[in-house]
């Protein structure tokens, strides 16, 4: 799921996927400012098919956080709707 997270982040920040390194955190690159963060949130919501709560929105601080959110969402989707394609 980390690769998926990297792809989503690269797309949200409009940067090369190679720039999304493992230690990336909020504010560590110019593109991850509050507006970049909102692009990321929208992309995550699209992937998960649900709206994030405000506390989830502000809790996203790193690549690891994004991976965890996607993992949890993937698990939920699998439980609720059967295996994903």
């Amino acid at each position: 799921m980390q690769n998926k997270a990297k792809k989503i982040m690269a797309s949200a920040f409009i940067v090369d996927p190679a720039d999304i390194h493992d230690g990336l955190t909020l504010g560590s690159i110019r593109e991850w400012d509050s507006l970049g963060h909102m692009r990321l949130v929208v992309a995550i919501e699209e992937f998960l098919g649900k709206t994030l709560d405000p506390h989830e929105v502000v809790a996203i601080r790193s690549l690891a956080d994004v991976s965890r959110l996607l993992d949890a969402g993937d698990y939920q989707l699998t439980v609720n709707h059967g295996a994903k394609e």
Partner: protein
Amino acid sequence: MFDLSQLGTVTDIFSGVTLDGTALRNQIAGRFERLSSCGVGKGDHVLIAHGGTTAFFVDLLAVWLRGAVAICVNPGVTANELSCLADFSKPVLLIAGSAATTPSGLSQIEPGGSETADGSLVGIKLPFTADEQVLVLFTSGTTGDPKGVVHTAGSLFRRVTENIKIIGHDILENTLCVLPTHFGHGLIGNCLTPLMAGQHLHLFVNPGLPGIGRLSHVLDEHKITFMSAVPSFWKVALKAAEPPTFRTLKRVQVGSAPLSSQLWMDIMKWSGAQVCNMYGITETANWAAGACSGDFAPEDGLVGRMWGGSAAVKTMSGVISKTGEGEILLRTPGMMAGYLFRDDLTAAAMLEGWYHTGDWGTIDEGGVIRLSGRIKSEINRAGMKVLPEELDLLMERHPSVLEACAFGVPDPLLGEAVGIAVRLAEQAPTVKELREWCAERIRSECVPERWFVVSEIPKTDRGKLNRDRVRNFCMDKSA
């Protein structure tokens, strides 16, 4: 004219520093003496390259008390931009933090706040007549030909006085500012208005995501009654912050970029306050017209009636009319004196006694203004104006860029993002390298988000650039 005896209180929420009117006047008096010792006198230009703190207002008001002109610039400008602005505006002094690179030949002092004196000993009336220059705000051109909007004591005083009258003294009781203080919307509308009304200004400037996430806590804790922001701020806030528990907000103003009717309604629901869509430009000392919920139903493009002064349209056939469709023209109490050292630009913008906004729209029989588009090429990125011509010229200074053309790209969050098409020489750098080169030379909001490397930049039949056409060409190619 402004009277310092009526100054309100200012609090910096980040540092916790609060200066009431007396403390503020004492610090201004101390700074006044420091500026005097630096040789700052009547009519001198002083460059202030910091902001968003109580110290900023100490510096600004002390500069004015000396009878000097405050030139407030984005603290995020690069060293090159600061040098360019200093060369152009010819200041006698720079006030900036220690991280700033002082342009050669210019004296620099640190931001105020450390000196105090007896505020009752200095004059309380600012020493200006109505037509004397007091403030310059740059709207573009920091890498080449700067475009600095000059306001007089009269234009600022009239604007602030109208703001207080229209918004209401009590509504300004606890005002929150989340906007930068070098920005007309933030400085004049959101800060000087409550300060000059003797009310309490709470600074929460550029709060970033963690700050926006605790917006409701800030509103509740400081019993905020009034705030103004740009649409993109609210797009973040509505996602990242819970609604406030205590409904202290009475009025929210949104401006500097188009506000959709949906976002307008979402802010009303979140805040529980009256929400006003504002029309303002730095040249008009910010708010020139507004439409508030309660008076109007939210509607895309609706900016309401004038806040003093008058508006007209210049139709396609060049006729100026009080009603109809065309370019929106303004005459306002807060109209600028002109562009600093650029009589050519002033003459082009002020034709036939009207300021030509470059906005296209309608005015109905009731004087209600609705905007539908822009006829100038300027990019409005989340309320910050970016001049595409300036970006073209900057990028074409790169040895591997043969040609560049910047344009606005529709963006759901920013309104417009900055896009650029570049034609490159052989052995060209990567987009990442170009972006970094650009970021070293121009403030962050101007660095393009969308880069399009093209083999040819399309031109019109006459060989001219048409930015809409280049944008469509690039967007089609990347689709």
